[in-house]
């Protein structure tokens, strides 16, 4: 499960096909928009269609190129492969998504601390060190972003400003 090895030519063919579908559906979406009303105005759909055409044309070129390469590879068996560590990617994605979700639900101080503590503990196996590092990092970020820079981060219990005088 951890390491995923994939034939790059095959992956390019699939990617090119997906991009072709993506650009066609993108053009379909632009057809639902209102036409231009001002004389000379090319309209809201004009530029997105140019961008989608660029994607379509080059995806088509990539698709044809890679089909030809694939046919050639079959005879020479020299296709390049790439290996991706899927578990690391998904763990990172999961943890960072939980951090974003946590910031808006349980507040930055708690979610930020938990995110750092769990990851640092897992990486160093020293829970006391991880605990104090996470606590100080969250305190410093709170001081800089919330108290000094007035970023309105969602907070659970800490005040979003402190009146000194």
């Amino acid at each position, binding site marked *: 499960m951890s390491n995923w090895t994939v034939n790059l030519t095959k992956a390019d063919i699939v990617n090119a096909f997906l991009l072709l579908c993506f650009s066609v559906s993108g053009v379909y979406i632009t057809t639902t928009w209102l036409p231009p009303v001002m004389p000379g105005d090319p309209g809201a759909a004009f530029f997105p269609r140019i961008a989608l055409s660029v994607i379509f044309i080059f995806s088509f070129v990539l698709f044809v190129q890679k089909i030809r390469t694939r046919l050639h590879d079959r005879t020479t068996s020299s296709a390049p492969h790439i290996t991706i560590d899927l578990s690391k990617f998904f763990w990172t994605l999961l943890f960072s998504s939980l951090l974003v979700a946590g910031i808006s639900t349980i507040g930055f101080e708690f979610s930020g601390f938990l995110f750092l503590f769990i*990851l640092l503990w897992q990486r160093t196996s020293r829970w006391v060190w991880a605990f104090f590092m996470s606590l100080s990092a969250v305190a410093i970020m709170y001081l800089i972003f919330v108290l000094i820079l007035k*970023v309105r981060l969602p907070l659970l219990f800490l005040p979003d400003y402190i009146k000194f005088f």
Partner: protein
Amino acid sequence: MEDILENIGPALNIVFQFETFLVIALGVLAGVILGILPGFGGSQALALMFPFTFIMSPSAAILFMISIYSAAEYGGSIPAILIRTPGTTAAAMTVLDGYPMAQKGDAYRALMISITSGVFGGIFSSLIFIVAATALAWVGLQFGPSEMFALGLLGLAIIGSFVGNNPTKGFIAAGLGLLLSTFGESPFGAVRFSFDLDFLSDGIPLIVMIIAMLAAPEIFRLMGLTRADDEASIEGSKGMLSGRGKGFSFFDFRKLLPTMLRGSLIGTFIGAIPGPGPTVGTVIAYNEEKRWSKRADQFGTGIDEAVSAPESANNAVVAGAMVPALALGIPGSGAIAVLLGVLVSKNMVPGPTLFTENGPLVMAVFIGLIICNIFLLLCGILGIRYFAKIVEVPGRILGPFVMVMLIIGAYAHDNNVAHAGMVIVFGALAFWMDKFNFSTIPVILGFVMGPIIEQNLNLAMVINQGNVISMVSRPLTIFILTLSVITAYAAYRRSKKI
């Protein structure tokens, strides 16, 4: 010339005061710190510090703000070089070679090149503007929508330089960048690709896209590091920090002078045009340097010129941007709009009359910029050894901290949690693009140039009643379009050779 001689004495009187030196020093310090933080570009830093100007004299207030702006643009390059996370959007080009230099153990050298080139660019363009501010303001005014559209195409023409050995994938990535730049409001107010989601109707902020495309794949890598990977990379960086690695000598500075000159000239010129801003300046400077360089094939692997050119252009744009702002009252960017706000709050009207009624103040602004760059040099040189210490922190420990910083940085841009979510979504996309050999740089180029091209194309089409021939037949437009074609062809030829 008479104006210059008449104004220089009073201008020096304004600048050479303890209060002015103090506010410049404080501005530089605040700017560098704010520039380092992801999400805090020049405009955010200026907006944040605006209230402090209420207690300052007009000259001190404007010099304070300019120091912050200039220093924030430099500060953005520090995390770009050290952790592949540009603090400001203009530092995106610095990542391309600055980070590979840091990875090779040359972080100190990259930071030194960044500071000396930035300071050179800042001083160079200030000197040019002291002599030729009014004339350059006139040149800037010649750029109408058609010329700006052509300038946008020129910026886009360099995509061929970033496609590596697979131009097809590079152009797909550029198309994706152009498409993503159309999310949100169109130039005439229609909402596109919002999918009934409120946060998408405002579009995707540039800083979110830059953080996601450049920094996020690196964070995914850092998060996956093991103790053994870390030990090997720290061993490599120790030599450089203790002074045994490659330093930066006066000889190196002299060797980079032509590069700095080219970057500064481009930055000065781009700055004088209302609209493009430092990001476009750095993109064009990087490409032009690649075109001039004898080792163009090594760009992207961590070479001196590739860090020096965008850095000198970046700081040169700051002085350049002051010209249309002060002489014509045209704010070329959000940051300059805040600067104009400071002037207005001090009962001064930006525009042609500012040069005649407050000539010494205008002159003081450019002299102050030179002083600000000298402070920046001191601040940079003294701070570099401490900044560079970050490469000693093991990647597996640094990863979680940088991830939190990125997410807060994206959030801080507009106090919007959706932007933090966007960083993760586009970061994951960038990770896969990277794995399947789609360069993410063309996405950023397309995203930066897209709005410039589209807005000016639409405006030019409306002005010319849809007549494309009359739109592109202006002499300056023809010149820039021809340059774009030559650039695109040269870049494509180069990519085929690699």
